[in-house]
């Protein structure tokens, strides 16, 4: 028996051409009859297939798979009379196919994705149908940025296809709730098996479906516990109640993870009388170079009176997320969301579902510095060093000072491998076409540590958003905790117009830097936007 339904064998198969005028609405009504209203998320999935030029759907009734068997066994613990469950795998292609032979000739890139629909006939509850899991390939929109997508294998008529994405799943309300399915999307990114099943999550927090069921849901502490057991390091923020001390905007926890290719989770308030919350996984964002927000006062991030800047997430207008109630790959407008604490005691028109109570950002287990800390520490070094750049008439040094004087420097934190930084520098060119000196690149290649580092990119308005270029960056160790003591234990190097800045001892009191000419006096491409191969 295969471990996962997505690669299991099929007991029966139907190939359905779905080009217009075929109606996917009619298909759902015919296939699931009175249960169709439960399948709103499948409507959403099929609408994405339609928008993605879907031409063929293969419907297979699945024989058996270990993940389904596990779930059925757990449902039976809650409802001992439970015996009947069926699962269908719906696979989608953007090529017209009419026969099994035709399916064998489909190219790998014509596979759009799949959805597994599971129907459980639970005594005393009646039949329940839901999307057990689904992965569809990325959106066609060029403003959408999704990083860190896994490759999911899916069997169709005995042939394995692959699709990249973040898995969507819908709760069954019996052995899992919305917290579980949000966790599944996020935990898959870290788990040794590439997927974390609900039984493993429940066992971690003592839910055995006999003495303790999922009726009480999961709490946020348990969610963090499950994610960390999967291999993640979590950084969480509670925005459910007001706080007197330092509290960054909740968006920073989300952006820091997703921009580096790791998922995050938003916990929303609900209208439920019990006061319980709803969770959704977030894994991408939109970026528009024409966004107006960064020029407005409220886009500044103020660490203190002497340290203010524009964070790069100011150009983000939507988070890309799944919502198990409604389906996959939605864009949630950033400015639609408010921290729940801001609404406490106010008569506001913001619906509870837009009130953010809690956020969880994730990174790999070895990462000990989150993006908010990295950005702040990066600002500390960059804003201290850049006014002291050697005076050599470089106009970009002067411009940097001018933008700094009006608090209009832009910072973008990214988690990368130190070696990837060196590769990035080999591919960038400044505006005049000058490259970083090859002898310095060789020194970086042999001397940089093999570990994850934070690269905090430094740019200025318009250069950043429209041209996707920067004037420098600082590299900080990510796998060693950052101390407020400024002990230089995280500082690796900085690069500013024309120069690398390397630490040469002296500690926090008298820090000495060596400025080494880099060969590239002006601005270069942002990480991920390099113009040279």
């Amino acid at each position, binding site marked *: 028996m295969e471990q996962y339904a997505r690669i299991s064998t099929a007991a029966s198969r139907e190939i359905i051409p779905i080009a217009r005028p075929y109606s996917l609405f009619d298909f759902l009504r015919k296939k699931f009859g009175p249960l169709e209203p439960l399948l709103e998320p499948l409507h959403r999935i099929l609408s994405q297939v339609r928008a993605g030029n879907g031409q063929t759907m293969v419907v297979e009734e699945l024989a058996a798979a270990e993940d389904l068997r596990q779930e059925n066994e757990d449902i039976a613990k809650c409802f001992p009379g439970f015996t009947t469950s069926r699962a269908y795998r719906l696979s989608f292609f953007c090529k017209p196919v009419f026969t099994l032979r035709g399916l064998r000739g489909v190219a790998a890139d014509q596979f759009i994705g799949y959805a597994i629909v599971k129907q459980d006939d639970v005594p005393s509850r009646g039949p329940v149908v839901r999307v057990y899991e689904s992965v569809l390939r990325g959106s066609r929109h060029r403003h959408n940025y999704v990083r860190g997508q896994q490759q999911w294998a899916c069997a169709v008529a005995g042939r394995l296809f692959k699709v990249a994405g973040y898995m969507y799943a819908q709760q069954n309300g019996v052995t899992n709730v919305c917290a579980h399915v949000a966790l599944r999307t996020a935990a898959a990114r870290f788990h040794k098996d590439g997927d974390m099943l609900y039984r493993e999550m429940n066992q971690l927090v003592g839910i055995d479906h006999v003495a303790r069921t999922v009726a009480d849901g999961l709490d946020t*502490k348990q969610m*963090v516990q499950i994610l960390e057991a999967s291999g993640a390091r979590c950084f*969480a*923020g509670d925005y459910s109640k007001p706080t007197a001390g330092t509290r960054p905007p909740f968006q920073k926890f989300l952006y820091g993870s997703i921009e580096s290719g790791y998922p995050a989770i938003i916990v929303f308030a609900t209208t439920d009388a019990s006061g319980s919350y709803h969770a959704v996984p977030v894994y991408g964002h939109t970026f528009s170079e024409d966004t107006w927000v960064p020029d407005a006062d409220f886009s500044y991030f103020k660490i203190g009176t002497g340290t203010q800047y524009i964070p790069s997430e100011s150009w983000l207008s939507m988070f890309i997320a799944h919502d198990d109630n409604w389906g996959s790959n939605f864009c949630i407008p950033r400015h639609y969301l408010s921290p729940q604490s801001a609404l406490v005691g106010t008569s506001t028109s913001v619906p509870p579902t837009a009130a953010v109570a809690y956020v969880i950002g994730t990174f790999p287990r070895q990462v000990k510095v989150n993006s908010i800390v990295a950005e*702040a520490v990066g600002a500390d070094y960059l804003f201290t060093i850049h006014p002291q750049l050697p005076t050599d008439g470089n106009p970009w040094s002067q411009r940097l000072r001018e933008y700094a004087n009006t608090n209009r420097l832009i910072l973008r934190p990214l988690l990368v491998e130190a070696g990837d930084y060196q590769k990035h520098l080999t591919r960038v060119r400044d505006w005049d076409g000058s490259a970083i000196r090859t002898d310095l690149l060789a020194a970086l290649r042999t001397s940089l*540590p093999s570990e994850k580092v934070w690269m905090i990119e430094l740019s200025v308005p318009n250069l950043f958003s429209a041209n996707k270029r920067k004037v420098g960056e600082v590299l900080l160790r990510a796998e060693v905790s950052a101390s407020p003591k400024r002990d230089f234990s995280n500082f690796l190097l900085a690069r500013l117009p024309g120069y690398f800045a390397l630490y040469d001892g002296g500690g926090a009191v008298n820090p000495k830097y060596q400025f080494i000419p880099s060969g590239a006096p002006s601005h270069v491409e942002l990480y991920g936007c390099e113009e040279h191969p």
Partner: protein
Amino acid sequence: MPQVTMSFEQRRKVLLNRMTAHAKGQTVKKVIRFQNDDVPQFLRGLERFEKESRRSRLVVK
């Protein structure tokens, strides 16, 4: 021959030496002190917030 494992500080020093060697005397050395206490204060406050947040137990279902 056993592999020599360098500490981070040693590795950073090696990087400094190699890069300054390539600079052929064109390096500029400066002492640059931090100008304010904004970031250390922010980090202390953030640490408190994150610790308190991890203790929260909001029920999600």
